[in-house]
């Protein structure tokens, strides 16, 4: 404190930290109490390991969702699953899920009426069914590699931009990226009905399942780990039937995401050292205009 030593003669009046009075001190003067106000780690939270694991489960189950979708798609492409089967399964799942959703919803606080839900469903069906011939020929002339690359990019974007902290409704960008990827992939399928089935399936997995999961988390906390675990097992199992090595890799990834990463976070939290005090934090502002001119 240079200013401190400079003005340390014998000031008659004690220094006060006010600007409205004229004092016999330089403007940048501070006294000995300055460092007394230093605080450390005031906003650092101490996580418990299992709660972090529970939160990380959301990431894992989303990854598994993607894996599940890809599995379904490759089954469709190879013709191992008839589109009608997938459609029927999807219909059953959605009816079940809707019932569950309604049952878990609180009384009175409904944002949407059943009629609006039905209307939305009708819109999905009509447009998907109407556009599926167009979608079928959409990427005909585009090479398969391009389509795969685009889908991979879009699914990665979906995973990156998914709003994990407040998964009320999937965020626009992540949902749109997932839908784009499903349209791209669906357009490579052999038939019109395949395209339609794949798109409905994508809608179920990427749009409706997160809504249901969110409601599950809010209404019945204990069900969430089970649901997430089920999805993870389904994803790994699905990939195993097609490509065992991939399944192993996915399993390892899930383990790392769910168990190792939270452990790292909790471990590293101890080394956190933040200081707070009565000072303005220095901001480094590069004067870019110097370089631009």
């Amino acid at each position: 404190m240079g200013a401190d030593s400079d003005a340390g003669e014998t000031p008659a009046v004690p220094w006060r930290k006010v600007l409205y009075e004229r004092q016999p001190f330089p403007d940048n003067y501070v006294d000995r109490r300055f460092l007394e106000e230093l605080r450390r780690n005031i906003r650092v939270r101490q996580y418990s390991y299992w709660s972090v694991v529970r939160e990380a489960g959301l990431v894992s189950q989303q990854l598994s969702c993607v894996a599940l979708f890809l599995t379904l798609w490759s089954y469709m492409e190879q013709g191992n699953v008839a589109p009608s089967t997938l459609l029927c399964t999807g219909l059953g799942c959605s009816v079940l899920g809707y019932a569950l959703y309604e049952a878990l919803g609180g009384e009175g606080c409904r944002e949407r009426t059943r009629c609006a839900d039905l209307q939305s469903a009708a819109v999905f069906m009509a447009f998907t069914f109407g556009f599926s011939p167009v979608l079928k020929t959409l990427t005909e002339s585009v090479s398969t590699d391009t389509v795969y690359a685009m889908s991979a990019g879009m699914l990665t974007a979906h995973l990156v931009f998914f709003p994990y902290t407040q998964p009320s409704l999937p965020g626009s960008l992540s949902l749109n990226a997932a839908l784009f990827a499903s349209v791209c992939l669906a357009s490579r399928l052999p038939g019109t009905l395949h395209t339609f089935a794949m798109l409905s399936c994508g809608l179920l997995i990427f749009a409706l399942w997160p809504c249901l999961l969110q409601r599950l988390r809010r209404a019945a906390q204990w069900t969430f780990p089970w649901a997430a675990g089920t999805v993870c097992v389904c994803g790994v199992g699905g990939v195993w039937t097609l490509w065992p090595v991939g399944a192993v890799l996915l399993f390892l990834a899930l383990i790392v995401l769910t168990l190792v990463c939270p452990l790292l976070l909790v471990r590293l939290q101890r080394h956190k050292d933040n200081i707070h005090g009565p000072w303005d934090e220095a901001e480094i502002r590069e004067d870019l205009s110097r370089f631009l001119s």
Partner: protein
Amino acid sequence: MVLKIFFPRCCNMADSGLLVGRWIPGQDSAVVLAVIHYPFIPGQVKKYLSELHSQTQVDLTILGSWSFSKDSQKDMDEFLKDLSTIFSHSRWLQLSREPGKKGFACEVVHKNGHAAGDEEHEIIFVHYDQRKVMLSQLHPVQENGADVKSSELRAVFHTVSQSEPLFLFDKYDDGPLKLTHWQSDGREASILVELIKQASVPVCMLLTLLVGYRTEQFQTVFSTSKATTHMEFMRKANIFVSFFVDTALGLLLISWLYRENRISYLANTLVPAADHVAKELQNLLEWLMGAPAGLKMNRALDEVLGKFFLYHIHLWISYIRLMSPFIEMILWYVGLSACLGLTFALSVLSDIVALLTFHIYCFYVYGARLYCLKIYGLSSLWRLFRGKKWNVLRQRVDSCSYDLDQLFLGTLLFTILLFLLPTTALYYLVFTLLRLVVVTFQGLIHLSVDFINSFPLFALGLRICRPYRLAEGVKFCVLHEEPGAPLHLLMECYRTETSSCSSRDSWLTLVKKLFVGELIYPWRQKSTKTD
């Protein structure tokens, strides 16, 4: 004291007489305007001068006498003395020139009668060309007298230009006085100018009724008000000359076109040409409907668009077949319009081209509309894709939470538009290029029309034939210098500072240099030139 006398070159060889001119107020210099020849009655001269003064507001006086004769000076001396007493003034100039000699002799007589020789006054003669000074428009027109006093040269120009009525007399006029000045051998093309002035107004009123598109120009040319400034005059003359040339060229075109059955020949080549263009377009469309240049187009959309455009071409060909019997007649009548000017004919040609390439225009419009729609839709759907929307009220992009079905539909449409974009863009590109070719051709025609209309032919003609009318300033060069005799300077107009002043002298030297074999250079040698 240096006495400067501005002397007109046209009076160099004038018969003896009186010098009419003006003492520049505040300056020790005199401007000689004209010479009044000898048999005259002093009263009439005075009356004439006072009349001129009331007309021009310029203070014209008799400056002195001018003698140019083989007779000996001594006989005249007494007579000249008498004259100086009749036209009383503070100073009286006695200029005399002997034939065969270059310089003048000058004597300044003060009012008290004693002749002041060259010991007291150094006299410089500045020879100026009255015609050039009058026509070069160097004198400020709208300036009042106070400003004129500011500069000597300005005063000179002002005096010369203001005393225009003095120059209206020529030697064919029957008057009591005989004068020598720049127009004394007859005014320049005066009869022609008057005739044209008289005839032009009704003729052009008629033409204005006939041709609407030049109305504005005609209003400029034939406005009843006189062109006050030099620039306005130049503009009028330019427009008039360009119109004249335009009509002449148009008549030339007609005379070429209606000879040797050229119209029918033209009509016979026009229809197959249009047919050929349609065929070429058909080929182009078929190429586009395949896989053009290995591009990955959407097959379905490609086929739809191609068939649509092919149908249009089919329509167009049948339209041309329908038109072909009448084309010769149409061309015959349209060709007549060339008598209204070449620009008119060119404009009609531009319209004909526009009509004949109407299919290309149609294709271009369809392509552009489709493409624009796609780009617009893609940009707004891209905002939806990112979960944003355009806020109209605040003119910015805001984030927005969409419903699930909105998102789904938007993404579906976005994907479809994105994958169909290259096909549309290719069609748009091809037809825009075709359209650009047509537009360039029409642009060239319009450019040439504009060129003909606005080409400063009159100014160019002036530049070639009467360069001094476009003068920018004056310069002086030494005409005759002899120790003991007054210095003679020649005042010349020059056009611009940068361009070399091509006087006859330099032409002569150039020819001489060429003849002798000296080296010549395009740039000018530094000459002794002072402004």
